[in-house]
């Protein structure tokens, strides 16, 4: 299992984040920092979507169309599994021929 080190590193990092909030509860965090922290996941998730779509130029058209459909499904239903299902279905349909 060559991935053991990065997996344990990620586990430690995410746990530290979960624990830090609970431990720091009595400390005062500057509001500007709290505001910025709230936007980090949105920005990073978008970066990951764009980067993984751009990372497969061979399949870019199918993946962009499927991702658009999946995004609409997520927006309309708010359900993660519907989003994944719609995205994979469109992607497979477009790859059929």
């Amino acid at each position: 299992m060559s991935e053991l080190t990065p997996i344990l590193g990620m586990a430690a990092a995410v746990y530290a984040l979960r624990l830090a909030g609970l431990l720091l509860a009595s400390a005062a965090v500057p509001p500007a920092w709290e505001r910025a922290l709230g936007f980090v996941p949105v920005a990073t998730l978008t970066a990951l979507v764009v980067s993984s779509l751009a990372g497969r130029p061979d399949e870019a058209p199918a993946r962009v169309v499927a991702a658009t459909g999946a995004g609409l499904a997520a927006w309309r239903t708010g359900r993660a599994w519907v989003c994944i299902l719609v995205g994979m279905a469109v992607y497979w349909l477009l790859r059929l021929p």
Partner: protein
Amino acid sequence: MPGFRCTGSLALFARGFVAMLPLWAGAIPVGIAYGLAARGAGLDLSATQLMSLVVFSAAAQLSALSLLDAGAPGLVLVGAALALNAQLLLIGLAVGRELRPSWAARPVAAYFLTDGAYGVALALGRLRLPVLLGTGVSMFVAWNVGTGIGAAAGQALPELRRLGVDFVAPLTFLAVLVPLVRTRAAALAALVAGVATLLLAWLAPGGVAVLGAGLVGSTAAAWWAGRDRESHVSPTPASDGGAR
């Protein structure tokens, strides 16, 4: 758990656990998708399951698959896991301020803390620690059962890579992302980060571009929200997430 009255706490824990069951319908399929994607990315059965047991974050785990695929170093994986879960720090602060849990209870409560568990516990009335533990453990069970099913199914299905299961990762990011874009500032964070990713990809390898774009996008949004606040009060973007 130290400091609880046993019977009452157990009932509250059960209440939290049961209240989370409807969300299993969302968490298990996503867990299955992660399990399949992980096997498609070349992780073995034990690594796939271990990640769900110790990291317990859909976004972080799927980002790890994408980044490993792009050949990113371990530190970039850790950085992405931190960035994708920054909201947990805010949720932890909120829980800590409201509950003031005992020092012994904090490490346990932290392990199972997720957006979804916090949201459901909050929806059950005044936030209480055993309820929050119940919702958290419930989600942990669902996520790991889903992972196990997906990883086992991946064993039986040949040629996962050719089926394009790596595409599950960006779809999961979209599923988590879309409900979070509820304010103009959040939309700006997404827009700036998206453009920055494309620009930075010319300069830096994939994973580093993602982290840089995350930083640029959230800074831009925080600046915008701060400016906005000077003229009128607008709500901060609270993360109460969907299933996870």
